[in-house]
């Protein structure tokens, strides 16, 4: 239950399930396929549909960041619920990616920054 949308060199990944060790392998594989499918410069995670995430999600986001960073790409996130945001804050994920109000804001800022 992960939706993908391409907009130019931006890939928007909307996850619609709980992120744990059980679900994250499939999510990772799909995202990596989508990133490589086109020349993706900006990856935006839309977490509007994520009500639960544990440390497996930290590894998932960090791993995608490393892949994007290798090709000088950027990663951003929108739609963090308070409980999920707590995990992002604790794990220092905001040091490697920015949070925006919505996908439109993220697109504007990330594409301009590059």
């Amino acid at each position, binding site marked *: 239950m992960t939706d993908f949308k391409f907009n130019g060199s931006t890939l928007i990944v909307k996850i619609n399930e*709980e992120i744990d060790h059980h679900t994250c392998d499939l999510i990772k594989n799909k995202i990596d396929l989508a990133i490589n499918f086109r020349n993706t410069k900006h990856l935006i995670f839309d977490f509007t549909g994520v009500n639960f995430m544990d440390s497996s999600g930290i590894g998932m986001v960090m791993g995608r960041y490393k892949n994007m960073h290798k090709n000088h790409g950027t990663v951003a996130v929108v739609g963090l619920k308070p409980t999920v945001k707590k995990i992002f804050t604790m794990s220092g994920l905001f040091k490697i990616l920015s949070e925006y109000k919505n996908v439109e804001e993220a697109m504007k800022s990330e594409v301009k920054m590059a």
Partner: protein
Amino acid sequence: MKDTNVMKLEFLSKSTNEGFARVAVASFISQLDPTVEELSDIKTAVSEAVTNAIVHGYENTIGKIYITVKIDERNITIEVKDKGKGIENIEKAREPLYTSKPQLERSGMGFTIMESFMDKLTVRSSLGKGTTIVMKKRVN
């Protein structure tokens, strides 16, 4: 009379059971009317402990995971036990960012999350015998 309650779960170390375990514990705890945040903290801590038993304790072989939840007035005690390979150096394992499986994109934050989301975390482990995690939290 003091208000106490207990429940026990036993299930196989299959990753599909991670969601089941945290929801089952949360639904047992809900009799205390915890806040949304307290409930979510407990679900996350249980998910961490159960995932560790599956990924590290049994290393994806099939074994049994045992959960006991005790309620004593507003105090909750959750025990998660596996009979897997055990932890060699508990102190090191509990350090933030330490993971023995970086190749699996693990971040080493599991114990740190359990520690900060619960009031108290105790780890007992013996090599080749298994690991028991005891977590305590008081809800208001």
